[in-house]
């Protein structure tokens, strides 16, 4: 049967313009990016040369920069040490209590940071933790532990997503070729997870650098002892030195931007064949 010939032709279908949709996306996304840049520009405008030089020359700030860089790096290494196996375990295996474990791993993400600090303080009142509290609580290890507790949760989530994106077929083939589970992980999965590890490490480092609440409660804010950059900002504000606080904030922004840029460059290199 042929199609009817005398039917009126419907007007040509014309989709509406894409412009309002794209402009809407641009306004919503762009305004947020503009506010971020405006905040940084405001910091720059507020800080004068003298307060910046003063912050950079201050031995307290020197100490704070060094402790921040070292503690963030250590807590990142510790976080990855835990996040890689934990991310792989939760990505690949089903076991009793997996949902419970998933929920537990989210606790540090959803808890207010101060609560993590106070909980750590409470934990170190009980054995076996109390045996070490003399060397940990209100000391440098407390800074690292407080950063680790939050950073590790984010790194674990990032690693889980990274392993989820690697199809299990590769491991299956490796197993038939003679690998055991451990070798398949080391020889086949890990090389593919490198980019995810860089991303999780960057996230953990950035979280550690910005950590303040748990450090304040668990490690204290003693100058030249447990003072990290967020603590310095807090102490400068307490002392009424807003320009000094902003100068330290700018140092943190530069450090964070440097780490982000490095990880992006490393990530891009890994993507190249």
């Amino acid at each position, binding site marked *: 049967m042929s199609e009817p010939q005398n039917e009126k032709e419907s007007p040509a279908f014309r989709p509406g313009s894409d412009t309002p949709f794209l402009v809407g996306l641009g306004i919503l996304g762009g305004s947020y990016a503009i506010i971020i840049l405006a905040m940084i520009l405001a910091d720059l405008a507020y800080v004068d040369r003298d307060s910046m030089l003063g912050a950079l020359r201050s031995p307290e700030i020197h100490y704070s920069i060094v402790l921040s860089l070292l503690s963030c790096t250590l807590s990142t290494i510790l976080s990855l040490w835990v996040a890689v196996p934990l991310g792989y375990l939760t990505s690949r295996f089903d076991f009793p209590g997996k949902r419970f474990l998933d929920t537990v791993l989210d606790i540090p993400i959803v808890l207010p940071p101060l609560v993590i600090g106070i909980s750590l303080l409470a934990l170190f009142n009980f054995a076996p933790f109390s045996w070490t509290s003399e060397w940990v609580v209100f000391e440098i290890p407390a800074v690292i532990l407080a950063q680790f507790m939050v950073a590790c949760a984010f790194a674990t989530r990032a690693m889980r997503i990274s392993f989820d994106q690697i*199809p299990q077929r590769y491991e299956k083939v490796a197993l038939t070729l003679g690998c055991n589970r451990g070798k398949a992980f080391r020889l086949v999965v890990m090389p593919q997870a490198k980019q995810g590890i860089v991303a999780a490490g960057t996230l953990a480092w950035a979280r550690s650098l910005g950590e303040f609440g748990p450090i304040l409660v668990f490690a204290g804010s003693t100058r030249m002892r447990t003072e990290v950059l967020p603590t310095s900002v807090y102490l400068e504000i307490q002392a009424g030195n807003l320009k000094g606080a902003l100068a330290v904030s700018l140092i943190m922004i530069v450090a964070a931007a440097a780490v982000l840029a490095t990880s992006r460059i490393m990530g891009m290199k890994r993507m190249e064949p």
Partner: protein
Amino acid sequence: MIAVEKLSLKQGDFSLSDLNFELPEGAYGVLVGKSGCGKTTLLEAVCGLRPITIGRILLGGQDVTSFKPGERGVGYVPQDGALFPHLSVASQLAFSLVLRKTQPSLIAKRVEELSERLGISHLLDRMPDGLSGGERQRVALGRALSIRPKYLCLDEPLSALDEETHDEIYKLLLQSVKGTGVTVLHITHNKREVDNLADLVFRMNGSELIHER
């Protein structure tokens, strides 16, 4: 011989029960059936990649049910080849031989022999990213054959290929596998593959496995 006796397995909501089949030594068996009926699950169970709840899997008359995948001597080619993205073609072919701590000179010889047989000698330094679908399947087949397996499990190895490449790999399978003494279990939906490759055809229908030919 690949044989499955009263095999049952359960994975989440999916289960297979009381499956039996026997593929004689050197035969080319084709497994057909609707999507989602459990063909891949059964193939993976033969390879040792899925735990079974009841039953036995026999390879060459030996009960391998409790053997690890690498101990079964089964070459496995999944649907898209699953070439390791970080390894060159030569490293893919050498992978299992390096694991077995084979002498480097013997590895080089085997890689050369395999690559010539499969027509991939010019690709040895290439990474999987730059390979065509047909080239990927050739490498995947070579990687599975590198350990000189007595058994080969192929999970729709030709399904993602265009018509021309499909014919090319199909001919390669005929040349390099059929009649070589390797017992093959091949999953496919393609009638032409069934007609031209299969010595025996098994159809999965629900939880039943019917010997069609």
